[in-house]
């Protein structure tokens, strides 16, 4: 074969891969360095959580729901509780609705900061990964301070929440918000003005508005393509009903929408600020009152066991629209429980955004939808010799960044 001929081959990325963090298999067909076709398969970490749930009572399921995802362990219990409350016609006290929003927005801040770090890492920019995750520690500290744990918070309860936020705790939350106001400018400067980040993300992994609509894409990925849908804005739940949330698109900042990786970064960055503002408002406007519909769990369980109805909830998780559907038939355990996490919907975008990409861009493009596979939950390794390991992909990524910088420098020199 002559060197000028572009070799066609198929590469299996995953199920274990540095760009994915969780098991998923993406099979890319390439011609030379260009991706020509993509297929994917899920299920590597399917734990049968819904099946297990159908053998538990609703209070026990709450703890299962919290373990669907290591990041969205407010969003899943919130969606589960809201679905049960819908089926059982339980009214959540207003203060609990505000507390739910505060916990959910703290989760969004930590999730989006986690994404920004992952995105930087995929670009070969590990100093930014470390900075972003250092910054993220502050919100995790506050989550621990308020709930007792950094990750599995166990703070939601059917009919309300388990822990209130006391007046004595508020100064620490305000201090955290002040800290983020200070570092936010620096984060914006890094992600929006750095030429290297722009070079690696602008016009890469484009998802058009029409593609996003047809594929039913959700969350920041959809908003980055210009679709102004956000469950917090569209569908009243918790205290979002009072807060007049406006869906953020890249046009909010730049007056243009390209639907590329850069736009997905912009949306999440702006949503960090939006979450800070929402928390501030909740702290100011949260009414006094009870925090749960029924504090005695035995009584609550008796009430739930009598329910013969179905309920459904929509929640805007950090990655987008999350759904829980539940059906009870006056028994200990529900007869149906369905979870649909945002990545389940957003996986449909993977073939579209990877098509025509350079191989070195695959990690950042996949990471740009901020996939969460544990939430979503296989493929065939076509040729074991062509599986790229972490070192090789990192090397390709660094090479591309350097080549782009050199090309740019040459271009400027010619000017």
């Amino acid at each position, binding site marked *: 074969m002559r060197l000028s001929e572009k070799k066609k081959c198929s590469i299996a990325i995953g199920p274990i891969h540095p760009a994915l963090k969780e098991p998923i298999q993406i099979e890319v067909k390439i011609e030379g360095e260009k991706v020509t076709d993509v297929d994917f*398969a*899920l*299920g590597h970490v*399917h734990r*049968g959580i*819904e*099946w297990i749930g159908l053998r538990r009572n609703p209070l026990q399921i709450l703890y299962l729901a919290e373990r669907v995802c290591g990041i969205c362990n407010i969003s899943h219990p919130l969606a589960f509780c809201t679905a049960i*409350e*819908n089926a059982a016609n339980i*009214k*959540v006290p*207003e203060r609990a*609705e505000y507390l739910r929003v505060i916990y959910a927005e703290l989760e969004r801040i930590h999730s989006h900061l986690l994404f920004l770090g992952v995105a930087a890492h995929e670009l070969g920019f590990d100093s930014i990964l470390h900075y972003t995750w250092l910054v993220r520690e502050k919100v995790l500290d506050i989550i621990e301070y308020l709930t007792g744990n950094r990750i599995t918070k166990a703070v939601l309860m059917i009919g309300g929440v388990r822990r209130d936020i006391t007046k004595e705790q508020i100064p620490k939350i305000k201090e955290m918000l002040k800290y983020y106001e200070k570092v936010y400018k620096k984060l914006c400067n890094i992600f929006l003005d750095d030429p290297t980040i722009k070079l690696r993300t602008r016009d890469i992994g484009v998802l058009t508005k029409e593609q996003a*609509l*047809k*594929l*039913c*894409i959700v969350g920041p990925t959809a908003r980055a393509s210009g*679709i*102004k*849908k956000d*469950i917090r*804005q*569209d*569908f*009243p*739940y*918790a*205290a*979002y*009903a*009072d*807060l*007049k949330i*406006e*869906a953020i698109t890249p046009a909010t900042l730049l007056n243009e929408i390209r639907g590329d990786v850069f736009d997905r970064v912009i949306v999440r960055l702006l949503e960090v600020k939006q979450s800070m503002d929402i928390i501030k408002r909740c702290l100011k*406007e949260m*009414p006094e009152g009870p925090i749960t519909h029924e504090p005695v769990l035995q009584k609550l369980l008796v009430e739930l066991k009598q329910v013969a109805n179905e309920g*459904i909830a*929509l929640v805007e998780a950090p990655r987008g*629209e999350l*759904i829980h*559907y539940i*059906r009870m038939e006056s028994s200990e355990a529900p*007869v*149906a429980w*369905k979870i*649909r996490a945002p990545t*389940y*919907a957003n*996986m*449909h975008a993977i073939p579209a955004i990877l098509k025509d990409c350079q191989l070195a861009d695959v990690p950042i493009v996949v990471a740009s939808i901020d996939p969460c596979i544990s939430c979503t*939950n*296989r493929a065939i390794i076509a040729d074991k010799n062509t599986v790229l390991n972490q070192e090789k992909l990192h090397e390709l990524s660094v090479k591309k960044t350097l080549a782009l910088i050199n090309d740019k420098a040459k271009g400027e020199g010619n000017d």
Partner: protein
Amino acid sequence: MNAEEFIEKLKKELANDVSNFRVVTTEHGLSKSKAYRVWADADSKNFKNVVRKLFSLQEYPHFSVSSGFDAGKTIEILLHFALNYANPKALVLFTLRVKLPKQRPKMKTITDLVPGAMISEKEKREFFGIEIEGLAPGKMFLDDSLSGVYPWRRDSKGANKIAKNLHSGDAIE
């Protein structure tokens, strides 16, 4: 268009195609803002026509997911749509219920209308053993060692025999 106006249009558009059309509202926040959930049943032979009609109400109806459960003699599949989205407080969460006979559960694909339904339909095929006409071949979640086992069924084809071996070391054989 607010949610109530949209529901009126939806009801009118689907009047001849669905039964048990019901609207459930819940109130949230100090503003007591209402969230609207609409439920309806459709015949398994006509449900695709109902989905087609949603396109006359919105250019791109948002298909969220389908859920389902084994009801004994039937398998119920529920198609959940988030309609009238991108409008503040106006989203209508519409669920269309389709009952399929347990003996030979079969339905048409909607992926020709809604490409974003692909993962959900493959999941129903793998977890309930439903034949979905027109859906692209290939598995999404379960591996071939689970062939003939449909985990979400509550009958002999369900996952009970696998569950017994969950802690035995050589689990799924």
